[in-house]
């Protein structure tokens, strides 16, 4: 393999129990996270993007469990471990120090009763990364400075409610990267923030990724976020990866009707349209069984096989994969991609 891979999700299936029956919500997902790169998983609510991320560090909600596939973690010395089969105790030694996570709500991720400096310090003390308290404090202040918090010595003693949303998200990022993890999972890290703050936080994540040569998985519903900072992008719909490639290729030449639909339904600045193009219909419920392609009910390109057969993933150009029946047809037909 030419690329240096840190994490490999292979054929991952996650199911939830509903009325005594298993319903898959993540269906045979394959994702590769190269070392030092930012990978984006993009999709609408209920598409399984968060569940995919939560399977990695074993924090799926109780109703959901991994029913198939593996999550391979590649150590630097070439060892491989399947995170999905590790015991909780063993998984914990990796999570927190090697894998950390940033969530959407900066309000609820922090302990309101604890000074922020202490909260960041906790990570160091738990994972034994500081010899003394003084050393830990010094490291925390340095880290707070690095994530762009002004007057870190003063802020060390602040409580979460004294900070703005953007500042809190910076504190959480500080907490997530202070143990120098190899992988940061960010689940909608900027969704609760204003655009100007979003731009700053994305820049910060990019900077952290470069300084600490860390890989990042960003879960988002926002195509703008993907195009701004991700190296690779995966488009998910109803538990399946519909299309994936490098971000640059994906945006230059989106192929899957769902990706194209998503991109054309976003209002853009500098465009004067009477009406937006839309994807008709709604996202089906998870317990709806669909025999063919998950997207066939809302797709404009449907051909007969879409309704009866699951499409396989096809490589349409180097490193650009699409799961769609009409790709072959489109290729041979008159439609220009």
């Amino acid at each position, binding site marked *: 393999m030419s690329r240096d891979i840190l994490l490999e999700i292979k054929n991952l299936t996650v199911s939830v129990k509903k009325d005594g029956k298993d319903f898959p919500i993540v269906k045979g997902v394959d994702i590769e996270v190269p070392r030092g790169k930012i990978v984006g998983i993009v999709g609408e609510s209920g598409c399984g993007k968060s569940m995919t991320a939560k399977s990695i560090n074993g924090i799926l909600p109780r109703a959901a469990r991994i029913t198939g596939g593996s999550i391979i973690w590649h150590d630097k010395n070439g060892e491989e471990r399947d995170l999905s089969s590790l015991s909780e105790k063993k998984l914990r030694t990796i999570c927190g120090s090697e894998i950390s996570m940033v969530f959407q709500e900066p309000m609820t991720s922090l302990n309101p009763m604890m000074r922020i400096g202490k909260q960041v310090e906790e990570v160091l003390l738990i994972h034994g990364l500081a010899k003394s308290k003084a050393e830990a404090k010094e490291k925390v202040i340095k880290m707070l400075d690095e994530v762009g918090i002004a007057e870190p010595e003063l802020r060390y003693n602040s409580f979460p409610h004294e900070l703005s949303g953007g500042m809190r998200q910076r504190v959480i990022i500080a907490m997530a990267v202070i143990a120098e993890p190899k992988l940061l999972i960010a689940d909608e890290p900027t969704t609760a923030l*204003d655009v*100007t703050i979003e*731009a700053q936080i*994305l820049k910060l994540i990019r900077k952290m990724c470069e300084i600490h040569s860390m890989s990042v998985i960003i879960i988002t519903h926002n195509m703008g976020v993907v195009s701004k900072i991700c190296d690779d992008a995966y488009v998910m719909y109803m538990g399946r990866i519909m299309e994936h490639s490098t971000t640059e290729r994906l945006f230059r030449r989106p192929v899957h009707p769902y990706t194209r639909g998503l991109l054309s339904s*976003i*209002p853009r600045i500098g465009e004067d349209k009477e009406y*937006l193009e839309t994807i008709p219909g709604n996202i089906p419920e998870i317990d709806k069984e669909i025999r063919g392609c998950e997207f066939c009910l809302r797709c404009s390109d449907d051909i007969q096989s879409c309704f009866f057969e699951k499409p396989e993933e096809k490589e349409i150009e180097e490193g650009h994969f699409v799961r769609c029946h009409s790709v072959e047809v489109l290729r041979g037909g008159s439609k220009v991609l």
Partner: protein
Amino acid sequence: MKDKLIIADGMNKSYRIGRGKLHHAVRDVSFEIYRGETLALVGESGCGKSTLAKLIMRLIEADSGEIYFDGNKISALSEKDFRPYRRRMQMVFQDPASSLNPRMKIKDIIAEPVRTWHLYESKGEVEERVKELLDMVELKESALERFPNQFSGGQKQRIAIARAIALSPELLVCDESVSALDVSVQAQILNLLKRLKKELGLSCLFISHDLSVVNFIADRVCVMRDGGICEEGNTADIYAAPKHEYTKYLLSSIPQIPQY
């Protein structure tokens, strides 16, 4: 010059934030909404845009300032005298899940304003109106007997819109009405709002933090910051040549999606 439906003049509102401190949520804001136009208030969280919308609807009372609706001063009216105006201005909120009563059927949710105002003599007429409204928001008649939890977010927002236009209002206030929706659904609702506005000749006060959405839907834009309006103008002009530093900063922060 077109008719002015709403004139807001020198609006102020502050909130007490404890220990005698005041937070100026809206400071000296004046603007007007012409008939048939969509005016957007855009700004970041805490800039006072929602407070301003509530002031216009008189859901909260202003500290000072005047509001005119269709040439009549409504800011000083008593609750009783103001009531006829309530019918002429309606609101659609951000979260469709919490703005619909979960224990009411869709037909009752949409019929409620019509019944409250005794607009029709017979039950049959009310039913007809509800069906007509459902059709306007592109929902099927089978929705009538169902409850809100049987609908997706986008469908719920359609129901909320049907309820808002049930009384044929002249002003529709949309407070972040598409912010909670997925992109593919958001586009549908935006198209719906635009179409309804055209067909019904609605004026619309559209509140949003999303500049791309505003660009699509608004005729004119007021950019708000710290309770005041820092720039106002035609949508095309503001996006093409923002004058205020803050507008420029806002516009430059939006992640651009390359065109394919």
